[in-house]
């Protein structure tokens, strides 16, 4: 597989343990108590969307559901709130996968922005219907910082696959 479908470079196949390791690391980042600091992205949604776009056959709604439940417990949110949002996010990202991979990373981010925004709007709707307080507009800022992080994330999460097939002892990585 290539970094994007237009690229000539062939990547190593993805290792499944690395996918789950990165998801768990995103979960830890999500549980960092940042209080009411505005603009903190939903790391797990971002990484989940990334792998759903890259590997639609391996990462999908089941993974989204499982990690969504863990976030629900960790945040003390309503059970199923993040699970519902991540299932729909994974579905959307899987469906977008064939199209998005033709674009360079910066333009991929523009495709991901509405998806992330949709998950947040969905969570707000679910909680407002249940009678919670509107969290304020800064709540949505996290989506935009997350979108900005797509390009560095694209580079970082593909790093293990950039390694050459034949191991060369003179190369540092």
């Amino acid at each position, binding site marked *: 597989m290539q970094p994007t479908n237009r690229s000539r470079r062939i990547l190593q196949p993805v290792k499944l343990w690395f996918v789950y390791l990165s998801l*768990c690391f995103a*979960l*830890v*980042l*999500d*549980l*960092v*108590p*940042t*209080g*009411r600091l505005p603009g903190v992205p939903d790391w797990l949604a971002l990484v989940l969307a990334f792998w759903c776009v890259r590997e639609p056959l391996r990462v*999908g*709604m*089941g993974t*989204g*559901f499982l990690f*969504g*439940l*863990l976030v629900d*417990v*960790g*945040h*003390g*949110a*309503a*059970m*199923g*709130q993040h*699970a*519902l949002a991540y*299932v*729909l996010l994974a*579905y959307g990202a899987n469906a977008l996968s064939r199209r998005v991979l033709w674009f360079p990373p910066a333009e991929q981010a523009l495709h991901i922005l509405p998806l992330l925004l949709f998950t947040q709007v969905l969570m*707000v709707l*679910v*909680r407002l219907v*249940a*009678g*919670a*307080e*509107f*969290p*304020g507009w800064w*709540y949505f800022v996290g989506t935009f910082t997350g979108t900005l992080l797509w390009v560095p994330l694209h580079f970082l999460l593909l790093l293990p696959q950039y390694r050459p097939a034949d191991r060369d002892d003179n190369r540092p990585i």
Partner: protein
Amino acid sequence: MRLMVFVAIALTMLVADLKFRYLEVMRQSLSVILYPVEMAAATPADLVRNASTYFATLAKVQKENAALRDERLRVGERLVQFEQMSRENTELRGLLGMAQRLEAHSVAAQVLYAARDPFSRKVILDRGASHGVGAGQAVVDATGVIGQVSRVYPIQSEVTLLTDKDQAIPVTVARNGLRGAVFGAGRGQLELRFLPANADVQPGDELLTSGLDGLYLPGLPVARVVRVERDSQAFARILCVPAGGVESSMRVLVLSRAEPLPPMPDPADALPIAPSGKTRDAKSATGDTASSEAKASE
């Protein structure tokens, strides 16, 4: 197809959790698995907090120390008075043959951080079930009630603040003993609801816990009335600000009654058409709770 299945499961869980609170067992067991992850995640926040206290200037600490000494003197004087009065109170109550005041059981705790759920106002304390914290207990700071323990984990607990939307606490107006209930109104404000438009409440009135719910100790400061609007409907719209530092205090006490209240009477037993034996039981039962409530509110 799989999407429909997952969405259906998630929606069912949402309804089960938000409407009926069925999923607490599942939440507790998942939280045990998540606990090491949460500890790992809390480390950077701890580092930042410790670093900020480390770099606090000496002058600031000295000033704070002086302020604390002043306050200790002032409080010490009140403590002497208080001890004298409490002795006197015990004697007087003994003379009148009344029950002694309720004993409070308290656990000192520190606020670790605000919970990350942006839809509610909750904080996490560093004390949990293993330290004797239980769900439903009142959380107070030096100036008043700030909230109520809503979930207990083994060594942490989650406190729902008074300003959380629709969080309720039964109160009395200190000036005239009028009873009511204060609800979180959102945006950091409180509202004293369901009082008639002609109720005797004025801006500046202090609101204290009434203790009628059997959870809070009576007489803790809750809020101060700031605005009363009597124009609109049958109920007055009474806005209050919390007495305690609800959004700001870091060191708190978790208070509970040292001994639980007698059990509530079964409402089914109190029906006048019940068989005669049952009615007598019900009468004595309601009489007991009424008197204990009276004691509690004294």
